């Protein structure tokens, strides 16, 4: 199995500058690249796949520098956004394509094997236009695997999939990582699936690496508002916002505990027994809606809007607007935003 090292790779596209980016990809490991639109995620993948010229740094596959290699020589399974399936070819001929262009004599056997594995045998004569989202994803992954790639690169694998198909695709990728031991690099907007798949994360912002590390580190130290929201913190406050509402006791309390760019915390539970909690606040209900994890409530606390949740199980009526509720915030659950930036080329994990 192959190990990949991306060392200080840079690309300059017109005004946009990507990198330098460093990534280590070992067999059986998966890296998720996160970032807002325009942060350079897709450019990074296309640079690794050989479609964008690397203006600096190098890409090394098992000790061989492949930075200047043509895309077709790199032997990676690159799945672009939208999958890039061939609409004029049947499922079978899509999967067979990489074997066909390599003139592999075992093309028929290998194609059958993959169609079996991804439950596509009964769909082999269908064209992509007649497949569901989940089926299309399975065709894309079977095709990417056909010629035994040494790395899977996937841009937004979970785009436009329903919950069930997302779950299945998550399992397929997990299997590739654990059983096939192929290293995986994914770009995604979906935190749940990123956390279920990736061992380490890379956050890009404006073409620069903002942060790099594993899941625990990411949850402990969300670097900025985007990251905090991405990993699921529902209450994220910028320093400026807290300063502007400092007359509210909760804002002042949070401000004291935040440094850098602001502070984040998960949705706190409503206290049932007043006074039993260490730090207690009160707010007026703005809205309330039932969710599988309990009733999600938005409270107005002075100048701040805070998301809280009623305890599970909840069987009573939804709280009315304007009703006052008490809640607590565990000081240990607070995560200051804005740790120092990772300097290019230094490992943080």
């Amino acid at each position: 199995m192959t190990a990949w090292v991306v060392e200080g790779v840079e690309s300059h596209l017109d005004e946009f500058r990507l990198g330098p980016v460093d990534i280590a990809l070992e067999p059986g490991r998966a890296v998720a690249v996160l970032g807002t639109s325009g942060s350079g995620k897709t450019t990074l993948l296309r640079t690794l796949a050989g479609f964008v010229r690397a203006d600096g740094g190098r890409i090394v596959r098992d000790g061989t520098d492949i930075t200047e290699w043509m895309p077709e020589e790199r032997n990676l399974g690159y799945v672009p956004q939208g999958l890039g399936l061939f609409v004029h070819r049947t499922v079978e001929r899509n999967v067979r394509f990489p074997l066909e262009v390599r003139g592999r004599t075992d093309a028929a056997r290998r194609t059958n094997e993959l169609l079996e594995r991804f439950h596509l045998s009964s769909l082999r004569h269908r064209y992509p236009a007649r497949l569901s989202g989940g089926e299309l994803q399975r065709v894309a992954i079977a095709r990417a695997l056909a010629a035994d790639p040494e790395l899977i690169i996937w841009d937004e694998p979970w785009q436009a999939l329903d919950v069930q198909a997302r779950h299945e695709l998550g399992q397929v990728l997990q299997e590739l990582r654990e059983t096939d031991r192929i290293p995986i690099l994914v770009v995604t907007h979906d935190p749940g699936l990123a956390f279920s798949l990736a061992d380490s994360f890379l956050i890009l912002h404006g073409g620069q690496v903002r942060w790099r590390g594993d899941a625990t580190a990411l949850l402990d130290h969300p670097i900025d508002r985007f990251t905090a929201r991405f990993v699921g913190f529902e209450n994220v406050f910028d320093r400026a916002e807290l300063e502007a509402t400092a007359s509210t006791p909760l804002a002042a309390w949070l401000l004291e505990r935040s440094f850098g760019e602001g502070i984040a915390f998960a949705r706190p539970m409503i206290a049932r027994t007043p006074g039993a909690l260490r730090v207690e606040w009160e707010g007026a209900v703005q809205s309330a809606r039932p969710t599988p994890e309990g009733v999600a409530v938005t409270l107005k606390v002075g100048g701040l809007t805070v998301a809280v949740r009623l305890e599970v199980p909840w069987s009573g009526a939804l709280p009315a607007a304007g009703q006052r509720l008490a809640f607590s915030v565990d000081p240990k659950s607070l995560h200051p935003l804005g740790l120092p930036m990772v300097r290019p080329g230094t490992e943080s994990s």
Partner: protein
Amino acid sequence: MAEGTGVPNRGARASRRRFRSGPYWLALQLVLSGSLILLFVLPIVALFTYAPFSRIVAAAGNSAVRESIWFTFYASGLTVLAAVLLAVPLGYVLARHRFLGRSVVEAVVALPVAVPHLLVGLGLFLLFVPGTPLYTWSNALGFTVYDRIWGVVLVMVFVSAPYTVLASDLSFRAVDDRVLESARSLGASPANVFLLVSLPLALRGIVAGLLLTWARAVSEIGGILIIAYVVYPGGPYTGPTTSVISVYIYNLFSGGDLADAAAVSSFFLLVAFAIFLVVRLGERSGWLPWRRGELAP
């Protein structure tokens, strides 16, 4: 399906179901589109009603008429071949490459569609006038232009190839870059990507362009009147002396033989209509390959 997947939505067929529209709106659509269809159909009806049926049958049996139609299809077939060899690659270059002077090239390609075709004949006449180097060289190579099939093909290519260039350009442009990139990444060389992915995906549009090229070539008269009013055997044409069907009909008309002109026109219309019908039915049945994947299960 997400935007830009290149895969048509599964529900597209269902969503194509007609909306209920108001009666006035429907009437307006019927009147406007009906008027145009009438404009297409009425002159044809006039032709068929003017020529007695027996005359049409006689035209079909006339060997000179058949020779002229056959020659027209032969020359227009060579024109389509030239369009495949020259116009499709130019369309590909325009779609896939950015280069200095591209707008000028695009304007030059569009020009033959806009200029009066007598002008094309005149231009070619001046180019190949006896005494010019082109006249000497082309004759030495057996490529005689005046009153030979090559002259007809030259005019036809000039006036009709732009349709294939434009259609190829648009069709290659419509192929999603990401599809081409995944093909490359899956191990295909640039030549393989072109042959196995770009070309099949653009084929439907290219074929539509070639059909227009063929139709435009068949209907050409202006340039041919100057370059090859009469066609003598020579080059790849070894049949009797003839002329393209448009010139043939024009001759009948200018000679005052209106009924014969209408009869030959009607017969030619039937042949051309049959050809278009066969192509359309072939497409719909999936027998012709360029719409596979859209229609098949």
